[in-house]
């Protein structure tokens, strides 16, 4: 199997598992599921991160986000398809129902005052909820520091 083929298999497994369970798998689980060494899997994860398919925690091969799914609990929570998910930002939170082709409820807090905010998505449309989103950086700089972005 070529490196590109392994990266494709890793991508499909990671995203499908995250969608099906709400949990983003890490290298040991991916390795066991695909029958490949952890070293091979970690190399594939580095390749996927270089291609901006997913985001690794700094200086590791631990997945931080298989966007739109976040691997750790966050302030952006989504209920959809009978499961709970986390996202790294409001864009990704709104992307989870889209990725799942499901209706969903996004819960978050105002970045300034901390008040709870709820957004309902149904049939591919935002059906309830309002507010604004702040893009601190232009798109050409999003990947300078994706954590800040």
């Amino acid at each position: 199997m070529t490196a590109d083929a392994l990266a494709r298999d890793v991508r499909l497994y990671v995203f499908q598992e995250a969608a099906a369970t709400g949990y983003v798998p890490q290298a040991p689980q991916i390795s066991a599921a695909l029958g490949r060494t952890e070293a091979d899997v970690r190399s594939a994860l580095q390749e996927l991160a270089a291609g901006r398919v997913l985001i690794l925690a700094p200086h590791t091969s631990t997945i931080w986000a298989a966007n739109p799914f976040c691997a750790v609990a966050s302030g952006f929570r989504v209920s959809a398809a009978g499961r709970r998910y986390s996202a790294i930002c409001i864009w990704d939170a709104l992307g989870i129902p889209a990725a799942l082709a499901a209706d969903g409820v996004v819960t978050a807090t105002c970045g300034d005052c901390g008040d709870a905010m709820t957004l309902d998505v149904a049939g591919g449309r935002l059906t309830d909820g309002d507010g604004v989103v702040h893009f601190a950086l232009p798109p050409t700089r999003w990947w300078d520091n994706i954590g800040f972005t």
Partner: protein
Amino acid sequence: MLLFRDEEHVRRWCAARELTPGAIVGVDQVHRLAHAWYKDKLRPDWRRQTVDETEALFASIGLTGAFWNLRA
């Protein structure tokens, strides 16, 4: 990208951090962006959008102007 109650909350958040506000976009626009961006992410044949495709997507939901210029 953070969610805020309204523009006043964005400006207060930026002022507290001595940041110049970037782009402030309605949540409905961001939902349309997110829907288009992620609707195919689980498909086996998914690929990253090209610059041309991303520009067209931005324009289709009203994200235009220097801030959204991908070729700067």
